[in-house]
């Protein structure tokens, strides 16, 4: 059963995707000329074709449109290629963009899901605790901490962790997702331990950055629920403290936070560009930064399209499951 609301959300998601790919197409069409000439020169050298032919090949291969066709046809071809997952060929890495994505995406998903779930769960529990106990010493500490991390951009946190824990103390590795010389990828304990060891600092950067905000949000939400009559009634009925806090306050207070997860994923995706670059962690963000630095538009557009698609999908999923977790949103 698809409600009117769901159709509206899906239509809106498609519109956003359409807008984002249009921006991409405009950008790709306005690449500085010298960037293309480097590729064209390369193709002329390698295959011995004429300059015009090489320029056409470069546009088809790296940018995903044929310059001979009319503009609207180019645009349709371009979007069709993106939607088919045909992301082109990266001139700097000399690999299909799909291959780079296939190797980078799992690392980013791993880091992001670990960071998001850690900071969300700890933040929710801590926020609930603070709201329930009211006057504790933790409350002002968390507030001051949240203000401080709000003032610290995520890549600054990452750089501080990198300088002190990885370089100075040598507790964590300087780069990579795992040591290929020491462990063999697969489901074995040394590999998993090695992967977690490499992921520790990137994950810690996100967690340090977001945990204060989640705690404050949960506290605010839980405090407003505390005033509700049904909570007072539950306390008056003599229910166990743990049951009141989890089933009566927590369950209601967590709902507004779920809507924020999609926004959080979007900002973490953006943050991953700098954080993964600091730790030379081979995820989507790292390759995006490389593509930007080397003017590799094929890779840039492929990764950007995936980031956008991921964020839009996250928003859509949250929008669609929201009425399921919050019955009050169903009636509208």
């Amino acid at each position, binding site marked *: 059963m698809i409600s009117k609301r769901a159709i509206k959300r899906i239509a809106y998601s498609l519109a956003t995707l359409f807008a984002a790919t249009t921006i991409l197409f405009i950008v790709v069409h306005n690449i500085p000329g010298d960037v293309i000439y480097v590729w064209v020169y390369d193709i002329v050298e390698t295959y011995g074709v004429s300059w015009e032919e090489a320029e056409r090949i470069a546009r088809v291969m790296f940018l995903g449109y044929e310059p001979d066709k009319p503009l609207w046809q180019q645009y349709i071809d371009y979007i069709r290629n993106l939607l088919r997952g045909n992301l082109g060929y990266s001139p700097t890495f000399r690999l299909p963009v799909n291959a780079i994505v296939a190797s980078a995406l799992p690392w980013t998903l791993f880091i992001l899901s670990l960071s998001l779930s850690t900071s969300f769960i700890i933040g929710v529990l801590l926020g609930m605790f603070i709201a329930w106990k009211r006057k504790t010493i933790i409350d002002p500490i968390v*507030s001051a901490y949240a*203000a401080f991390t709000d003032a610290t*951009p995520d890549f600054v946190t990452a750089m501080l962790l990198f300088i002190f824990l990885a370089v100075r103390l040598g507790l964590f590795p300087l780069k990579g997702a795992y040591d290929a010389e020491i462990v063999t990828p697969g489901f074995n304990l040394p590999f998993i331990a090695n992967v977690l060891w490499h992921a520790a600092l990137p994950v810690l950067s996100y967690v340090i950055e977001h945990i204060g905000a989640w705690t404050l949000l949960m506290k605010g939400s839980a405090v407003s629920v505390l005033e509700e009559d049904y909570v007072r009634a539950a306390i008056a009925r003599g229910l166990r403290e743990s049951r009141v806090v989890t089933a009566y306050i927590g369950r209601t207070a967590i709902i507004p936070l779920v809507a924020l997860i999609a926004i959080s994923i979007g900002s973490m995706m953006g943050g991953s560009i700098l954080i993964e670059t600091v730790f030379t962690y081979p995820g989507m963000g790292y390759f995006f930064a490389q593509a930007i630095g080397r003017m590799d538009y094929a890779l840039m557009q492929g990764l950007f399209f995936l980031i956008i698609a991921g964020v839009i999908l996250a928003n859509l999923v949250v929008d669609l499951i929201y009425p399921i977790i919050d019955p009050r949103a169903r009636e509208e």
Partner: protein
Amino acid sequence: MRRMPVEMIKEVITEERKKTLKEALVEFYYSWIRPILKNRRAFIGSLILLMFISMATVGPLIVPLDLTTRWEQRFLPPSWEHPLGTDYAGRDIFQQIVHGSREVLTIAFLAAAYAILIAISIGIVSGYLGGVVDAFLMGITDIFLTIPSFPVMLIIAVTVRVADPFSFAAILAIWMWAGLARSIRAQVRSLREREFIEAAKVLGMSTRHIVFKEILPNIAPYITIYFIRMMKGAITASVGIMFLGVVPLSIVHWGVMMNLAMFQYGAVYVPEGIFYALSPLMAIVLLEYGAICFASGVEEIVNPRLKTYE
């Protein structure tokens, strides 16, 4: 004859009473200076911001920038001569931070100013007119809100090859206005239903008068708070973009200093380089902390019910 009273009321309302300078100063003191002095958070924030603003305006006049390479003075620790030590080429770090603050603040100020202008126009038009215009503008706003801003800013910055602060700020601003436009629209919609706006409409005042004299002053404190928050966001974004080394503005910009320390001269890997690596980081954190304190302090003054971080 029946129109007389209405005309008279209109004249009374629209008449601009000329204030003397002293009156204006006294009013400014009681409505802005005193509350800020009394609010701990706003006071600390304004001190930090004043420090950075004076650093960016008069700082470069007092502290001259000397970029001569002196390899024998490489990575010196802080001393009286070099308050923050020296960098990989023996140049004073403090001078670079002072001169960089001008770049950082100029870009942040311009970006926030552009973004505020876009947000006010779209928010007011959307909220005041309503209907189809509102639905269309809010649809666009939602799209700008959903697309992650940082990757787009990066792509556009490298494609148009920005080399001056004005266009750099414009690129940042395009992806910063959407949130504010939405909340201005919501405020305008609720203001539109209030009695004093209804009264102004009944009196036949022009839309321009209603928007600029009745609605705008009511959302002004809110815009002040947002302006500071946006400057903070613009600092993070611009420093992040410069950190990747793709916008060649100036080597004393804090983001470029971080880029040089991290990727070019290995300052993060040698123990002596720690002052060069940490100075821009600390400057950014302190500046943003000041902005946050000031913004949340002013928010407490304007709206005592709302207490962020407390």
